[in-house]
C-alpha cells in the first residue's frame, strides 16, 4: 500500500475541510478514511437549511454544504477510502484500519488528523424510568430514518430534550404528517438555537415544556404513552402532582452530543473533561506531536461553518508540522474562569499569530462582561447583552498580548450583573 504523509480519520465536514486545507498548504500524499459509503458525514441526513451562512453567505441545506466540500476533495489528488473502519490510532502515529478490500492494514503517516465527529447521548445515559418498548429513538436516528431511509418512525411523538436536532425533527415529522405533542426540556431554557424554537415549534404550535422531564414511558411492545412532570429547578427532581400524560407511539431523545473519542483515548492522548475532546494548542495539535484533532470530535460546534474553519486550521498546521515549521518556544495555558464552561484551545504556544479563542458560558446571563486576565491583571474586557450555553462565544487574543504574557496563564471569566 501507498505511503501517506497525512491520514485524516473521518470524511465528514471537518475531515474534508482539513484534507483540502492540508493539500492546498502543500501536503501531497493525503488519505481520508471514512466508515460510511460516502463522504459528508451527518450532513447527508441534515436536509434542512441554515448551513453555510457564515462561510458561503448562502443559506444551504446540509447535503449542499457537504457537496461543496466533496467537490473540492474530488478536484484534488486526495485519496479517499470509503466503507473503511479505523480500529486503532497509535501515539507513534500509526493508523490501523480495516475494509473488505485490504483486510486489516496499518499505515504510518507523518501526521494524523482526527475528525471522527460526535454521536448522540442515548436514553441509556439518562436513566429514564418506564418501559423499554419499541418506538424510542434518538432524534438523529429518527432523522436518518426519515431523510435517508424514507420511513416515518411514528405518528404521535413526544420529544425529550430541546437540542437542535430534536427541534428540527419536531418540524420534520410534523411536515411528514406526524403529530408532535410536546417537547420537554429539564433546564429552564432551551439548549437549541432561538431560531429553531420559532421556526420548528412556534410555527406549528408545538408546545415546549421547560423545567419538565419524562417520568414514565408506557407500552409493552410499542410505546403507548408518556408521562412528563415539572422538575424542581434546583435539584431537578420531579414535582408530584404536576404530571401530564400524552398518548403517543414514539419518543425521541435529543439530549446532547458527545465527541466520539475512543480512538483518541486508546492512543493515550490527554483529554479535556470539559470539552470531552483532546486537549489542543491553537494549531489543534494534541499533546502527541503530529496528531491533530478538529470538528465535533474536539468539541461540539453550533455550526458546521465553524467546524470547517477549525478543520482548516488543523489541515494547515499538519503541513507546518510535516515541514518542520511549527515553532514552539513557550506555552501559555488558557483557563476557564468563573461562569465559563470550557475554553478552546486549552494551550497557546508562543510565538503565535492572533489566536481566536472559543468558549462556552455555563448558564443564561444578561448584561455580562467577559474578562481576559493575565494572572490577576485584566487585559481585555468585553460587554455583551445576553449569553447562553448553547451559543459559542469567541474572543481574539492578539499576538503581542500573548507574547507579553507574564504569568504563563490566561483566564477567561464572565462577570454577570445582578438585575
Amino acid at each position, binding site marked *: 500500500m501507498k505511503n501517506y504523509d497525512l491520514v485524516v480519520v473521518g470524511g465528514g465536514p471537518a475531515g474534508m475541510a482539513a484534507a483540502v486545507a492540508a493539500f492546498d498548504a502543500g501536503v501531497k500524499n493525503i488519505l481520508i478514511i471514512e466508515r460510511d459509503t460516502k463522504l459528508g458525514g451527518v450532513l447527508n441526513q441534515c*436536509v*434542512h*437549511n*441554515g448551513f453555510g*451562512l457564515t462561510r458561503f453567505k448562502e*443559506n*444551504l*441545506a*446540509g*447535503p*449542499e454544504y457537504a*457537496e461543496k466540500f466533496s467537490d473540492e476533495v474530488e478536484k484534488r489528488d486526495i485519496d479517499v477510502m470509503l466503507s473503511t473502519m479505523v480500529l486503532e490510532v497509535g501515539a507513534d502515529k500509526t493508523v490501523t484500519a480495516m475494509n473488505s478490500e485490504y483486510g486489516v492494514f496499518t499505515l504510518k503517516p507523518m501526521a494524523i488528523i482526527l475528525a471522527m465527529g460526535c454521536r448522540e447521548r442515548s436514553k441509556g445515559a439518562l436513566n429514564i424510568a418506564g418501559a423499554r418498548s419499541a418506538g424510542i429513538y434518538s432524534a438523529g436516528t429518527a432523522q436518518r430514518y*426519515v*431523510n*435517508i*431511509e*424514507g420511513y416515518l418512525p411514528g405518528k404521535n411523538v413526544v420529544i425529550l430534550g430541546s437540542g437542535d436536532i430534536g427541534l428540527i425533527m419536531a418540524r420534520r415529522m410534523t*411536515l*411528514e404528517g406526524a403529530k408532535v405533542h410536546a417537547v420537554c426540556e429539564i433546564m429552564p431554557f432551551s439548549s437549541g*438555537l*432561538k*431560531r429553531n*424554537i*420559532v*421556526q420548528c415549534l412556534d*410555527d406549528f404550535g408545538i408546545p415546549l415544556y421547560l423545567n419538565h422531564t419524562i417520568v414514565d414511558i408506557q407500552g409493552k411492545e410499542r410505546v403507548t404513552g408518556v408521562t412528563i412532570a415539572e422538575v424542581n429547578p434546583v435539584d431537578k427532581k420531579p414535582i408530584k402532582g404536576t404530571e401530564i400524560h400524552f398518548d403517543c407511539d414514539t419518543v425521541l431523545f435529543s439530549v446532547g452530543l458527545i465527541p466520539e473519542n475512543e480512538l483518541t483515548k486508546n492512543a493515550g492522548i490527554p483529554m479535556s473533561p470539559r470539552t470531552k475532546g483532546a486537549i489542543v494548542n491553537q494549531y489543534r495539535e494534541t499533546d502527541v506531536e503530529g496528531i491533530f484533532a478538529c470538528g465535533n470530535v474536539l468539541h461540539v460546534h*453550533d*455550526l458546521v461553518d465553524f467546524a470547517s474553519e477549525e478543520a482548516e486550521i488543523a489541515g494547515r498546521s499538519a503541513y507546518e508540522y510535516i515541514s518542520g515549521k511549527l515553532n514552539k518556544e513557550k506555552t501559555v495555558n488558557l483557563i476557564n474562569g468563573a461562569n465559563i464552561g470550557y475554553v478552546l484551545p486549552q494551550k497557546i504556544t508562543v510565538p503565535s499569530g492572533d489566536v481566536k479563542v472559543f468558549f462556552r458560558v455555563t448558564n443564561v446571563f444578561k448584561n455580562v462582561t467577559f474578562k481576559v486576565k493575565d494572572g490577576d491583571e485584566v487585559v481585555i474586557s468585553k460587554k455583551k447583552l445576553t449569553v447562553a450555553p448553547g451559543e459559542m462565544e469567541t474572543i481574539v487574543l492578539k499576538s503581542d498580548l500573548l507574547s507579553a504574557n507574564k504569568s504563563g496563564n490566561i483566564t477567561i471569566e464572565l462577570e454577570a450583573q445582578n438585575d
Partner: protein
Amino acid sequence: MTEKLLTCVECPRGCQITVTLDDGKVVSVVGNFCPRGKVYAENECVNPKRVVTSTMNSDIGVLVPVRTDKPVLKANIFDVMKKINATTCKTPIKLGDVIIANIDGDANLIASKTVK
C-alpha cells in the same frame, strides 16, 4: 402604535427584533444585525414566509433532498409538502436542478444534492 417582538430565523444568530406597527403598517424595525433581518421582520408582520426543506422519492428508490429556492407563504407549507410527496423525480439530478417549477408563487423546488 403597537410593538411586536420577533426572533429572526434567517441565520443562527437569531436577532431579537422589535417592530413598531401603525395600523398594521411597519413603521420601524430595530434590533436586526443585517438587512435580511429587516426583510424578515417586515414579511413576518404582514405575510410570514419560510423556506421548505424535505426529501423526494426518485425513480431509483433513493431519497433526494429538496428545498424551495425562496421562502414560501407559511400558510402554504403543507400544500408544498403535498406536491413534494406526490412527485417522483427522475435521476440523474444535479445539485440546484429545478424539480418542480413555481411550486408556490415564484418559488421553485430545487435539488439540494447531486444524485447520479
